Each structure stands twice: as structure tokens, then as C-alpha cells.
């Protein structure tokens, strides 16, 4: 597997996979990022997998240099690690099912989306929930998964002007991607539903529920099921904050 390394300023570099590996690239990026992280090198500060790249943030003064410039030393070490990861190694992605209440108050754009795709709302929901998705990258806001695998006929344009506030848990579509807003933030994606799951919670050891490379499927739920899961989530947060995790309730944008 061929990697090209280029500097991203004086404290980071980008490793890019040579083109031609197709839609499985992000699986390899996630695996490569885990591999670099697990190498346990003190000078590797952070690793960001995304589509066809892995960005490595490093501490130049901590790279063992043998008299050579820090960048050259970091580049050589990371090339060596990536080569050792092997061509077929893709790690073990998690498989996660996300319950979604589609349409109505939860998905204010569902009707327009269905109309644009020439389907009924029920057909649109079925098509969205039947597909399998993969997390290509997590970014934009903490815990926001950009997922590939949307059936092309469900693709939607972004809103011309973003909503000033999108509710936490909202499931959206932009182009041929689908995603879930983990926090209440401004956003321009077409909103088709909402999940009661908390995709980002800083009181968890792994604050983001999804990582690049994970496999995701959506399962439709009704409003009553939504409320029940939401209550269970709130109860779980209350018990975890009672254990000393601080102000989780104050942090959440979606307190019940």
C-alpha cells in the first residue's frame, strides 16, 4: 500500500493513500490511525483519520532525530509504521444500530426530501433505514459522523441558509452523505429524523459513540419509543453524574 507524506505546517503531517483503493479507503484510514495510536510513541500527539488521509500531529522536539531535522525523522518513522501495518489489515469496526424517529417534529424536512426523490415518506424512510452505512470521518462538531452509503436517489442539496439551531440527535442528509448532529448547533443539512441516543458525551471514557470506519444501520422507531429511550438515556446520565462525573446534565443540549 503506497502512502505519500506531506507536511501540514511544522507540527503535523498528512499521510495520503495512493488513489485507486475506492470506497474502502476510510476503513484503512481508521485502521491506520488506530495502528499509529497503538504504537504508543510519546511524540505522536494526535491522529485524525478522514476519507483517504491520516493526519498526524506530532511534537517536533520529542522526535528522536539522530541529527536530522524533526520533520524528516517523523516522516521516516511514520512511513515505517504504516508499512508495517500491512496491506490488508483493516482493524475491527464496531457495528452500531441507531434508533431514529423519522418525520414530524423529529424530521422537519422529510416531506420535502421525499418529494424531491419522487417517493412517499414511508418509501423514503424504508430506503434510508434499509441501507448500511460506514463512518467516513468524525468532524465538524465533536462526535459528528459523516457517513457514506446513502442510496444515491436519497441524495439532497444542503439548505441555502443554515438553521440557526439544529436539535441534538437530528439525522440529516447533505449530498450523498448522511449524518447525525451530536449537539445542538447551527446546521444546513436536510433533517429527516432524530435519535434519542447521545452521540457525544464527555463523561464517557470514549466521548464519541462513533469512530471513522464504524458500520451503522438505522432502525425506525415511533415517538413513544423515542421518549422511552430518551428517558433511559437521561436516567443513565443521572446515575453516572452521581458517581462524580460532574455536570453532565448541565452540558447536554437536550435535557428532558
Amino acid at each position: 500500500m503506497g502512502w505519500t507524506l506531506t507536511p501540514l505546517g511544522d507540527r503535523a503531517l498528512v499521510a495520503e493513500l495512493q488513489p485507486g483503493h475506492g470506497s474502502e479507503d476510510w476503513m484503512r484510514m481508521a485502521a491506520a490511525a488506530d495502528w499509529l495510536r497503538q504504537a504508543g510513541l510519546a511524540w505522536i500527539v494526535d491522529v485524525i483519520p478522514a476519507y483517504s488521509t491520516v493526519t498526524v500531529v506530532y511534537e517536533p522536539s520529542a522526535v528522536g532525530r539522530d541529527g536530522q531535522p524533526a520533520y524528516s525523522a517523523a516522516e521516516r518513522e511514520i512511513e515505517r509504521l504504516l508499512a508495517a501495518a500491512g496491506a490488508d489489515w483493516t482493524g475491527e469496526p464496531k457495528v452500531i444500530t441507531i434508533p431514529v424517529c423519522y418525520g414530524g417534529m423529529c424530521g422537519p424536512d422529510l416531506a420535502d426530501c421525499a418529494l424531491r426523490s419522487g417517493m412517499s415518506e414511508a418509501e423514503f424512510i424504508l430506503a434510508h433505514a434499509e441501507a448500511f452505512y460506514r463512518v467516513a470521518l468524525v468532524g465538524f462538531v465533536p462526535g459528528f459522523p459523516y457517513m457514506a452509503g446513502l442510496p444515491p436517489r436519497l441524495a439532497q442539496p444542503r439548505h441555502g441558509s443554515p438553521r440557526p439551531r439544529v436539535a441534538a440527535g437530528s439525522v440529516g442528509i447533505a449530498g450523498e452523505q448522511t449524518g447525525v448532529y451530536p449537539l445542538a448547533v447551527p446546521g444546513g443539512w436536510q433533517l429527516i429524523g432524530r435519535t434519542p441516543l447521545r452521540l457525544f458525551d464527555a463523561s464517557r471514557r470514549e466521548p464519541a459513540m462513533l469512530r471513522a470506519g464504524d458500520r451503522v444501520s438505522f432502525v425506525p422507531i415511533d415517538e413513544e419509543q423515542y421518549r422511552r429511550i430518551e428517558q433511559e438515556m437521561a436516567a443513565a446520565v443521572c446515575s453516572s453524574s452521581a458517581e462524580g462525573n460532574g455536570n453532565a446534565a448541565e452540558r447536554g443540549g437536550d435535557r428532558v
Partner: protein
Amino acid sequence: MSLLVIKPGLYSTVQDRGRPGHRAAGLSGGGAMDEYALRVANLLVGNDESAAGLELTLAGPTFKAEADLLIAVTGADMAPHADGRELAMWRPVYVPAGATLTFGAARAGCRAYVAVAGGIGTAPALGSRSTDARAGIGGIAGRPLRAGDAVPCGEAAGAVAPSAWATAWLAALAKRSAAEGDGRPAIAGAAWYAPPRAYGGGGAAGIELRAMPGRERGQFTQAARDSFYGGRYRVAAASDRMGVRLEGPPLHRIAGEELLSHGIVPGVVQVPGSGQPIVLGADCQTTGGYPKIAYIASVDLPLLAQAKPGDYIRFRPIDLEEAQRLDHARAMSLRTLVAAIRCKRP
């Protein structure tokens, strides 16, 4: 022990050296915008460089000291006063319990830093006390300070005990303060100081930032590349901890090829379709897809942090090897400063 917030100022947050290691989850690296100024402030009150302090932006807050404190103020000059008397910057200063600390509008620079002996003791989140307002974590309830907040300081509040060095300076300055004050304790600062950085907008000529060539520089027109290094850019009012937005000669691209989103870091100069560049700051998103014309040398990021709306910025080319050499030299000079400060005895 705490600092009670009487007025919060424009945007005052708890910051330390940041929260790296969680970018794969979409969390910014965060931390002080002017890391140099925060580190020096910590050293001046005997703290570890990684302790949390306060970052004040453009218009400063007012605090009431609820205990005797040893503090240091660095970074932008916001005319700090304690009980109406000017407080000297870049040195340890004794502030008696009950004193009112005021910070005004920034006269030079954009961000001031306040360190307290023992550090700020707000609860760490994911290994850092830095406020990340987008994620809603760190600092006080994951947001900037508000009137009525009590900013916890020192050991009892969850930070560490002031060092023996800091305790000795606090005692010595308190004694001087009692001797000099007529009836009420005076504000006493050490007679020595750390060399302050020269902040101040750079006037019409502009603040000079050294920049390495970016990955997509070849996609820009020759005129754009010339303007970038030859022109001057004004810092826009919409700038914040995510990015410093610049206004100046537009930077047009030859090819309109869309990039896949990839990891980005502070110091990256990205150019959206408008042609007006944005220099990414400490709270920048973890991924982005705009073309990158340049990267600011890390050694100059403190100058970027101190550029305030209306200031002018100019870019000068530097290569990667030189940028890393200067970054390393800065780290070495900080080590020398640590030793020099520890040698100071009251």
C-alpha cells in the same frame, strides 16, 4: 479560595495547554491561543507550565479576590488595576483578600492571561481544564465566565498547592504590602519581571507572520500568490478562537477542484470560495476541505493570537526546517526562563 466574577468581560475562559488526543472524536486541540503568554504567567507564580489560567479577550473582566493571592498577568495590555492602582505585568504580584481586580480594553494585543499560584481548579474534562465552548466542556460548565461565577484557585479548590517558591514570594510581598500600605494593604509586585513580548498591532506596516507554503498553493493564480506574500490583510471582527478571518486582496484559484475533507490544525491558512483567507486558531475544527495556501510557523502563533480586529497582518515566507529550528529555539529559551525564575528568591 476563589476569584469572584463581578463582570465577565467580552470573552473570558479557563485555558491550559489544551486537550490533544481526541481529534479523531472531533474534539479540538484547544488550549490558550497565546500559549507562550500562559506558560510564562504560570512560571511567574511558581506553577507547572501546564496549569490552567484565565484567557481574557479584548475587553477584560472585573474580579474580587476572596483570599490573598499571588498572581501574574501577561499577554495583551488591558490596563490591569487592583483597587484602583495599576498592577505591573509579567511579574509575580501579591493581591490581598478583598481586592477588586479590573481589566479594561486591550491597549496593545488581543488576549491577556492571568495565572494564580496553584492554578485554576475547575474540574478537568478528558484530561484538560480548557474551556471548549462548542463541545460544552472544561472551564466552568463548558462556557465563558459569567457574572457571579466563582473561579476556584489553589489546592482546596481542586488545583494543586502553591509551590514553596510561590509561598515564599507571597509571604515576602504580603509583608512589603503591609509596610507600604497606609491602613490597607498595598498591591506589591516583585522588582523583577520576565521579558514581555512586543505586542501591539504593528501599526500600518502590520504584524509579520512567517508562513510555509501550503499543499494547494499551486492551485492559486500567480497574482494570488504574489498578493499573499506582498499584500497586507486586515483582521476581521468575526475572528475568534476557531479562526482569525482576514480581509485583503482576494486569493483566486485557477482550478476549482473540490478536496475531500482532511485533518487540519491551528496555523493552517485556508481559503474558502470568497478568496478571503482564514488562519485557523486553537479551537479550529478537526477536519476541513478548503485549499491551504500556507501554514503559519508555530513560533509566530502567539503573534496571531494577539492580532485584534483592525490590525494588519503581513506574511513572509519561511521553510519548514527553519520554522522547526525557531520553534525549538523558543522551547529552549523557555527552559532558560524557568531556571532564571526559580533562582529568584525574595
